[in-house]
């Protein structure tokens, strides 16, 4: 199990246990993290699972692929550390990953 911590826009903090191999979005939806609605269910089609990665995790999480980056260009509240959480795969190395939901 990998622990992921979400800070939500309403000031909440959600600690979620995620299975390796699942996506960060799936873990968030399963735990009902507000603000991650994931309308398309992980098809990388909608940008409704947008998160900001805490700076210290950036390198391990990596940069978005082209299609994801293009969707992010038009998402609300994008920043330099924006990612779509359906495209981040949970792995042991990400234990403790800190994200915020814009």
């Amino acid at each position, binding site marked *: 199990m990998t622990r992921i911590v979400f800070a939500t826009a309403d000031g909440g903090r959600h600690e979620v246990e995620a299975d390796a191999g699942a996506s960060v979005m*799936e873990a968030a*939806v*399963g735990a*009902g993290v*507000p603000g991650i*609605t994931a*309308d*398309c*269910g*992980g*098809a*990388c*089609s*909608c*940008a409704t699972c947008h998160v900001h990665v805490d700076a210290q995790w950036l390198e391990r999480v990596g940069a978005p692929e082209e*299609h994801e980056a*293009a*969707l992010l*260009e*038009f*998402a609300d509240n994008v920043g330099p550390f924006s990612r779509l959480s359906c495209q981040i795969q949970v792995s042991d190395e990400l234990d403790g990953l800190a994200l915020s939901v814009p």
Partner: protein
Amino acid sequence: MSGSSTDRRVVIVGAGHAGGAVAAQLRQFGFAGPITLVGEEAYPPYQRPPLSKAWLKGEAGSETLLLRPADYYAGAGIELRLGATATALDREGRAVQLSDGSVYPYDSLILACGARPRTLPVPGAGLDGVLALRSIADADRLKAVLRPGLRLAIIGGGYIGLEVAASARHLGAEATVIERESRLLARVACPELSAFYADTHTARGVRFVLGAGVEALTGTAGQVCGVALSDGNVIACDAVLVGVGAQPNDELAQAAGLACDSGVVVDLEARTSDPAIFAIGDMTRRPLPLYGCTWRLESVPNALEQGKQAAAAITGRPAPAPEVPWFWSDQYEFKLQIAGLPIAADQVLIRGNAGSGRFAAFHLRSGAVVAVEAVNAPQEFMAGKLLIASQKPVDVAQLVDTGVPMKEVVASSAAVCA
């Protein structure tokens, strides 16, 4: 809103995408009363889109289909009654009757019964090997027959038919798509998009029979073996997938006397003609404020939007702002994203070129974008959504110039009329 939310009772009929989403949305909006989610199928709410795409190809496991983990509902205090069918509504007494004889009283009722595949009104439609695709049970049957060399005849060149054709080819099966119209996606897409998908599928070995009426399905020993066309030709096959559209499950609502017009008629709070009863998802006919008409949308984003509308109304929140309808389809390596509806469009402009596998078709009405179909073109899709919502005229020369970033097109459209 009268009464505290702890003593009001919500019953949701239909535990599909819309039903599952609205239950969770009510909790997110702080609704604390009892919620019962009644579903005919054996599974907790799940996603249907992967049933013709990643799941069918074997690229996504069954555990990824569930909308939320199965234990979510108990944890959120949502009673799940699976394998139970609502058989009647008592509007006077505000109660729902289930097939097992139990009766559930409600203060607010949400109908989320979805739609079911249209069947073919031809002889032989009941033969073994004639399949449809809506549920996990349907998808299991389809997956069980798809194997290398199987000859699959697909009746209907719409999104589900084409996605299944792509998945069938991926699994090594032969696929022939039989379509009544003279082009694919005739009812929903522009000719350029139809042509792109015809070429793409043909290059991957899918055969097409266009402009063809189906007279009968023929069989031997009860098993389908051919599709007889009205021109006398017979397409030999081992299985048939019928993908000719869906019809709303609105019988329960009709029997209860709710206003229906091929779909339960609702307003922008998802309320039916009975103020205590809401309806959401594929079974509804809803207003589309951006287009000034009503429509029956069959998409996940619509199910989610209407779920939000109903949950907001029940919890006394203001109605959420209307969204631009959208949809997606994955076939081979091509991601199609569609926003808006080409209602009364008078112009179609292509940005990019189909040959490159990356382009978008913009549908305009009086100079403003009303719909966009984007193939591997996420910027065009996202920008298209903004342009549609703004309803402002767009600079046509910029729109078709791939040298001008979509961000700029959006900015200058906003400036023109600001």
